[in-house]
């Protein structure tokens, strides 16, 4: 029999630390800081509205772009909170999570041989999505020295004639780094000078602490060359609902829509109904979750630094990204030993690409009690090293 697996599928690297994750599954009494999703339940009013709509028989396809009411509500929401101008008629697509939005955005703009720059450390799917689209993923390193912001000089070093687009994600998974208006403007100049497209994944935008999120496409010179991705998973604790959205000027949006209609048709209607309720009346629920993450962050970062794991203060998302360099262990060794010796699960930073090595990702989307317990165990681990 032939080997049916395509070259592209073969090209995607399997996770190098699969065994490590499998080990976590078999262990008991593990405090896991490895989970990249909120520990809260979806606010009940959101669940209720979705349940009610199912009872009313709202179970069919929606338009490819998604419910008009949801797109209009998003259009208003984005204008109000992020000064973004996208028409609900033809510049917003409701996607099946940001994951799908990312995929169709990349496929809409990538030709074979195109180089797609990726600010790293980054979420694990960016590179493989570029590979699957026939492009070449080019990492651009964000460093702790720069508070994990994208440094324009490091970006410039990686730009070639083949560069087509740049993918950024701020607030960032896994570092918690954010880019404010000033930081983005410095990058915008390069993007414009080299005629690049910007794909900005802002799924953690609502989880920005101590300041307001600034959206890349709010820079007027960037708006026409930016695809903004966002979703409901993180801010509203709706990960399993799989509702995200892609916003872009009509021409780009139309191209992404063609792919979306063939591969996904539309996002699940019950999720869209829930998302509409989230926008309409879940501000207080969202704010109280965000406030809780902020308290946990303060507590956890203080704790990490106290036990000797130096950690910059993440300004967004719900991840701490401390350095383990001082311990003399690699990030993978550190994570493996911490799991085996103290039963605390964290993710080695190298999973997230360039700039992630020598760091570990700790998600603080767990209760304060679990965070205290994790810190207690990590302190023991550090003392015994």
């Amino acid at each position: 029999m032939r080997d049916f697996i395509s070259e592209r599928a073969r090209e995607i690297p399997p996770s190098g630390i699969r065994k490590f994750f499998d080990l976590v599954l078999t262990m008991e009494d593990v405090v896991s800081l490895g989970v990249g999703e909120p520990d809260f339940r979806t606010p009940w009013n959101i669940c209720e509205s979705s349940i009610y709509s199912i009872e009313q028989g709202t179970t069919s396809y929606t338009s490819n772009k998604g419910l008009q009411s949801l797109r209009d509500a998003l259009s208003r929401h984005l204008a109000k909170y992020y000064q973004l101008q996208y028409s609900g008629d033809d510049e917003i697509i409701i996607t099946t999570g940001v994951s799908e939005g990312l995929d169709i955005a990349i496929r809409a703009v990538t030709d074979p041989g195109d180089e797609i720059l990726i600010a790293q450390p980054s979420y694990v799917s960016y590179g493989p999505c570029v590979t699957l689209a026939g492009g070449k993923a080019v990492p651009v390193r964000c460093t702790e020295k720069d508070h994990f912001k994208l440094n324009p000089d490091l970006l410039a070093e990686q730009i070639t004639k083949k560069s087509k687009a740049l993918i950024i994600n701020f607030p960032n998974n896994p570092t918690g780094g954010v880019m404010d208006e000033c930081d983005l403007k410095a990058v915008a100049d390069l993007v414009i000078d080299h005629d690049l497209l910007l794909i900005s994944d802002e799924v953690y935008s609502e989880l920005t602490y101590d300041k307001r999120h600034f959206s890349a496409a709010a820079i007027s010179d960037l708006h026409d060359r930016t695809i903004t991705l966002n979703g409901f998973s993180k801010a509203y604790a709706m990960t399993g609902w799989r509702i995200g959205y892609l916003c872009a000027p009509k021409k780009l949006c139309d191209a992404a829509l063609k792919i979306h209609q063939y591969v996904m048709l539309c996002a699940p209607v019950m999720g869209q109904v829930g998302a509409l309720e989230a926008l309409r009346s879940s501000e207080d629920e969202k704010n109280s979750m965000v406030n809780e993450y902020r308290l946990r962050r303060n507590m956890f970062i203080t704790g990490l630094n106290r036990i000797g794991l130096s950690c910059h203060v993440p300004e967004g998302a719900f991840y701490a990204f401390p350095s383990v360099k001082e311990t003399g262990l690699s990030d993978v060794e550190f994570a493996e030993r911490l799991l085996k010796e103290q039963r605390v699960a964290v993710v080695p930073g190298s999973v997230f690409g360039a700039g992630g090595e020598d760091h570990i990702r700790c998600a603080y989307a767990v209760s304060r009690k679990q965070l205290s317990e994790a810190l207690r165990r990590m302190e023991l681990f550090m003392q015994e090293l």
Partner: protein
Amino acid sequence: MDEKDLELLRILEENSRLSAEEIATMTSLAAAEVEARVHALEAAQVIMRYSTVINWEKAGNGEVSAIIELKVSPERDFGYDRIAERLSRFRQVRTLRLMTGTYDLQLIVTGKNMQEVSRFVSEHVAPMDRIRETATHIVMKSYKENGNALFEQPETERLPYSF
């Protein structure tokens, strides 16, 4: 009262057993400042006391509660205040409110059993001057008290890892 005080109050309302040190790490204040602020809030009676939410039914020591609606004739110069204060002195009265609508005062009363509650109402509340009418509603089952669900909620399953 500033934003930090409000934050302390929200944290303490949710869990008053946290130490000053623990609260300090969450709020980026010094522990001594947390203590000073909490003392000031106590002194100002903004923090009235620290109590515990207990599911007494689960403790095998269920109490009976009743909501009692009172129609009251208000007093010249005092309105409802004097009678409300008199009523509130009874240990059995856990909550007392002046309401809009078809009745005036609402009491939440607890007792060891139904007899105790009904004796309290008939012997102490109903005969009071100025109380024109009482209606007693016995609580059959409580599902949520002060924001705390009293029914078991299954743990949601999460993957041990996701990126």
